[in-house]
């Protein structure tokens, strides 16, 4: 990078990047993680891979949509005005998709009985699931390496599939093990 972008440029980049992700956030936003990493880590260097994974983790740990962690990327991207960056990233992440939801009301009656609703919903699913696998790779890049860390991940995956323990508690349990073993 020849020169650092100004705070204003960064705000514009945040706005543009997260609005695109918002509009493309099919499947509840599950599929946008790889692209978000490409932009935030690879292209703009707002955060490191490790920070990206930790912000994602915080997003999963806190109530509300996981993609709220966009706020933390905005926060880190604008050191001079962290709260402005956080607000801009969040607005860009949530307003466009919500506006589409509102705008859809006009089409509601025509679409309500349409078979296309199920066709589009079911048709997009395999691509979204593929993107979730890619998210595993993306998140793995910034997650701790080593047999012990992978063992924690495997046990959490197993507990998620086979027990009724909730998401936040599983992450906190993994964190407790981490204090003892991954310092």
């Amino acid at each position, binding site marked *: 990078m020849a020169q650092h972008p100004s705070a204003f440029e960064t705000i514009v980049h945040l706005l543009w990047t997260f609005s*695109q*992700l*918002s509009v*493309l956030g*099919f499947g*509840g*936003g599950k599929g946008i993680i790889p692209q978000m990493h*490409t932009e935030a880590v690879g292209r703009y260097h707002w955060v490191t891979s490790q920070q990206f994974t*930790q912000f994602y*983790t*915080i997003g999963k*740990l*806190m*109530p*509300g949509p996981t993609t*709220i*962690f966009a*706020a*933390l990327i905005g926060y880190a991207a604008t050191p001079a005005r962290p709260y402005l960056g*956080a607000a801009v990233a*969040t607005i860009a992440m*949530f307003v466009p*998709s*919500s506006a589409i*939801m*509102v705008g859809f009301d006009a089409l*509601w009656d025509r*679409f309500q009985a349409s078979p296309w*609703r199920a*066709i*589009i*919903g*079911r048709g997009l*699913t*395999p*691509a*979204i*699931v*593929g*993107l979730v*696998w*890619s998210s*595993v*790779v993306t*998140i*793995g890049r910034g997650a701790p390496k080593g047999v012990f*860390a992978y063992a*924690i991940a*495997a046990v*959490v995956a197993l507990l*998620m*599939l086979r027990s009724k323990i*909730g*998401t936040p508690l599983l*992450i*906190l349990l*993994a*964190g*407790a093990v981490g204090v003892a*073993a991954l310092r």
Partner: protein
Amino acid sequence: MSVKSEPSLLDIALTFAAISSTAFGGGQKASMRQQVLSRGWMDQERFMDGLEIAQVLPGPNILNLAVYCGQRVRGIPGAVAAFLGASVPPFVIVLIAGALYFKFAANPYVHGALRGCAAGALGLTAGNALELTWDERTQWIRIVLVAVTALAVSLLKMPLLLVLVMFGGAGIANEYLRSRKKADGAAS
């Protein structure tokens, strides 16, 4: 008594604020359903319609659903109130968490906890991927689409828009052809 007195915008915002600041993951949909139905804002059928649309359109399901409910009850102002209620508390909470993160991430104990949590989040994502893939097993072509998408994104760094157009499009075409076949089968 099908409609109770119209709720105020503040009512709407606070209802969704209470849900968004306390409920996690799938629990949010359940508590939203319970709140909306018990307040008589809409019936079960309307709510389930909204849930389906919320899942098809882009954006977090729970936020879309909140916006839908707000709009059904009080039009666009209601949608805005629901949006603010569903997004402002998580924003504030995640910022507090973020401020603590930047303050304490270097502490060795916090560092270890964060690494453990990150390993846990990786496990959750992998578990979710497995679970979702298992649901696709009924059609081999859907499994192929899952695999091809994952490879194209992770190895070739294919951009999201192209992924949705190509592999999302292929999935939609597949569903369309199946629905045609089913319709033909039913007609003959």
